[in-house]
């Protein structure tokens, strides 16, 4: 088949990638259904969709990790079968994964030739790679020190190495899976510049993301996926974030948070000179000070891995630290790592960053999870036994109040979608009516519909006069929910701003560790 038999279109250009009726099912789940896309060469094509919409499955098919049940793949007009990633590479497809596939203690050069060495001795391959790396760096502004160890590079530079790896393998088509998830706004902008440059040099880029703003900023065409299907492919210039969100979810979505003016009261949480040294002796928190008042949300912004997780763990009572933490003027124990029960008794609730590793027991039912952490409460005991019937009934009621689906408390946590799992955690923590709520990454891996609901719950709690500490790597989320924003970098708080008086640019600089102006 050639492109000429396609009716209704009159391009003379052959698409770089054309997928025709790709379908893939896992058991009863139809992950991809009759997907047809054409990606034109020399463009940036975005694929957007919620978690579980089938984006990753589609990319895995394109990169040879999965085999499609039916459908055809055309690369530059010729039908290509991609049984494994070697075939994808020789078809000119390069993939940059969300989680990099780099050997940490190898140098950049060694990583680049890994798997494509020409012969038993490394020296000629390394020399060849060094030469071509210099050329690539010049051509695409992809500057990386070829002799640096990966572990010494910043995340943004590691990502460049991934891109270089693909280019070194002669990739003409680059697939990037959620590439900005781990980058600061500045690093993300640099990445976008590189992508533009690559596009101008004739490369084709397929960008997978759930961030509407990225799609609007850098793509030429966008395809929206919902429940395994492509629901629309439109030129980016002819659409809007609201329209895309509606296509993704299938109904109208409120993208802005409805925020009433804050009425901050007394200091509920007061943290002074908090320091954490981890088990290998690295200082993760380097003397952090802040406070949270009743009726306000303090947002902690920052790139993942700058001490936010440790901060939540200390406040949640399962990480040793030094310094003082007061709840309602009363000092609490921070020198021991098993204070979870006493924290809860002090009116602190915690929605942890990772619901699958921390917030829930995936193999427990929803009703068992509904008291997780509170299983010692007097109210749910029946003599020496737990009152399981009462817990089940209460869980059923919570499921209805939080619209958790499917509404069955006997289902295991792992059988719920990400958004509904998060609602199970949220229902448990918010319904305790805590004095202070810690929330980590409340909407990570949660679909847009549920995000709206979760944000509303957090704002309701704040308007009831509770203190909320919000940690998120999504800058948009921090900006729209918080009253004050503290930015963490390398275990320190770089600065604190009022949400109404700052913007993404200023916060982005702080996130990169650059001190700006005064508080």
């Amino acid at each position, binding site marked *: 088949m050639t492109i000429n038999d396609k009716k209704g279109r009159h391009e003379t250009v052959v698409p770089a990638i054309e997928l025709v009726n790709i379908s893939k099912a*896992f*058991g*009863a789940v139809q992950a991809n259904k009759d997907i047809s896309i054409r990606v034109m060469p020399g463009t940036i094509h975005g694929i957007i969709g919620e978690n579980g919409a089938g984006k990753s499955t589609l990319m895995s098919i394109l990169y040879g990790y999965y085999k499609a049940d039916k459908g055809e793949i055309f690369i530059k007009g010729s039908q290509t079968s991609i049984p494994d990633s070697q075939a994808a590479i020789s078809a000119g497809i390069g993939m940059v994964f969300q989680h990099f596939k780099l050997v940490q203690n190898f140098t950049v050069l060694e990583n680049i030739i890994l798997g494509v060495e020409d012969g038993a001795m490394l020296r000629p391959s390394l020399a060849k790679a060094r030469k071509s790396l210099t050329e690539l760096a010049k051509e695409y502004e992809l500057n990386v020190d070829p002799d640096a160890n990966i572990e010494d590079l910043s995340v943004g530079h590691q990502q460049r190495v991934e891109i270089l790896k693909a280019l070194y393998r002669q990739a003409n088509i680059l697939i990037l899976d959620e590439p900005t998830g781990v980058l600061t706004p500045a690093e993300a902008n640099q990445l976008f510049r590189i992508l533009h440059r690559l596009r101008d040099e004739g490369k084709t880029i397929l960008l997978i993301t759930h961030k509407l703003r990225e799609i609007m900023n850098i793509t030429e065409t966008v395809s929206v996926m919902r429940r395994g299907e492509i629901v629309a492919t439109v030129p980016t210039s002819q659409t809007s974030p609201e329209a895309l969100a509606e296509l993704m979810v299938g109904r109208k979505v409120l993208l802005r948070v409805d925020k009433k003016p804050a009425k901050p009261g007394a200091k509920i949480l007061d943290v002074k000179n908090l320091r954490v040294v981890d088990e290998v002796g690295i200082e993760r928190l380097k003397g952090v000070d802040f406070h949270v008042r009743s009726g306000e949300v303090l947002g902690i912004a920052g790139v993942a891995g700058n001490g936010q997780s440790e901060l939540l763990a200390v406040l*949640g*009572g*399962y990480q040793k630290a030094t310094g003082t933490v007061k709840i309602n003027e009363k000092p609490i124990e921070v020198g021991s*790592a*098993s*204070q*979870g*029960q*006493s*924290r*809860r008794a002090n009116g602190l609730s*915690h929605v*942890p960053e*990772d619901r699958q*590793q*921390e*917030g*829930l*027991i*995936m*193999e*427990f039912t929803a009703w*068992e999870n509904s008291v*997780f*952490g509170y*299983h*010692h409460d007097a109210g749910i*005991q029946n003599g*020496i*036994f*737990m009152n*399981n019937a009462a817990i089940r009934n209460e869980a059923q009621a919570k499921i209805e109040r939080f619209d958790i689906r499917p509404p069955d408390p006997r289902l295991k946590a792992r059988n719920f979608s990400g958004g509904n799992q998060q609602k199970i955690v949220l229902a448990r923590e918010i319904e305790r009516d805590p004095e202070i709520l810690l929330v980590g990454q409340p909407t990570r891996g949660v679909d847009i519909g549920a995000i709206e609901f979760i944000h509303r719950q957090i704002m309701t709690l704040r308007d009831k006069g509770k203190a909320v500490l919000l940690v998120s790597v999504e800058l948009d989320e921090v900006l729209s929910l918080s009253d004050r924003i503290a930015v963490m970098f390398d275990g320190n708080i770089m600065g604190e701003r009022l949400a109404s008086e700052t913007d993404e640019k200023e916060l982005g600089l702080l996130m990169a560790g650059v001190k700006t102006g005064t508080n």
Partner: protein
Amino acid sequence: MQKIPQWADVVLVPLISLLLAAIISALVIIAIGQDPIEAVKLMVIGALGSTYGWGYTLYYATNFIFTGLAVSVAFHAKLFNIGGEGQAMIGGLGVAIAALYIPWPHWSIALLGCTCSAAIFGALWGYLPAILQAKRGSHIVITTIMFNFIAAGLLNYVLVNVMRPPASMDPATASFPPATHLPTLHDLLMPLGINFSRTTPANITFLIAFLAAVFVWLLIWKTRLGYSIRSFGQSGSAAKYAGINPVKITVITMLISGGLAGMMSINTTMGEAERLILNAPEGAGFIGIAVALMGRSHPLGVVLASLLFGFLYQGGAELAMWMAIPRELIVVIQALVILFTGALDNMVRLPINALLTIIQKSGDAK
């Protein structure tokens, strides 16, 4: 992925595994020139055909229930307690000390006291590996195996040098006083008009094993402690978040596990031998691992698997006695059962799962 129905999970899969083990065993028996049908007949009659056979089957099953429960409890906290054997040996020491040095007025009080003593000694032997695991990170699989050897050595020393009656040449304690002798199933069933074989070792401990199974069921699924144990086993990081102290849970779980393994020695030492001998558990601590695997760490499953292994032990002994099948082959058959029901579980489970999904799908399509 469709979920496999519960009946298939707990009944169908183990049955098919057993059948496969039986088929291969039959092939091996044919290969050495014997008749497998004859062998099966002999095993069934030998183990279940008389109250004598039942007496031995239940006696073995009692041992396996205790050690199987011990492994199960630990397994709910994802602790792999391989030390049931050693914990049972030291439990036996607890029984012997209590039975010999305390003047018990009646067997019932003696049973209570000796059970406590057995549990405490067994728990102590589980405590040390638990502390090493929880505080120092020494892997519990390694330490519990090591502690089996230490237990054997310790018992050897105690029996030869301390507790052996001076005139005896046998590395064993003196016989326990008559007031500590437990009623056998013969004694218990006589008032009901059932003439149970007088010569078998099955005794009242069988009922205690049942009580222990009920206790474990309540503990694991109905109490806060069981909830904490299961949480810790399913996800250490989540347990930390919930304020569950990992050191405390590890130690408490191993105390319970060791205690259960120790209680096994009531059956062997107080019920059967009526004195403490070397190597009293005879490998029951290890069979407990297979029993727990096959019973999916559920007390009911453990009881059923224990009965099966009791049958295999007694039936196997009969085979060795009456057919030209060597003793070693019996071990092979038992090993095949362990292999198929424990280690190769997924080999059967996954195809069955796929098959049921297909059946369900075609059912839905109609």
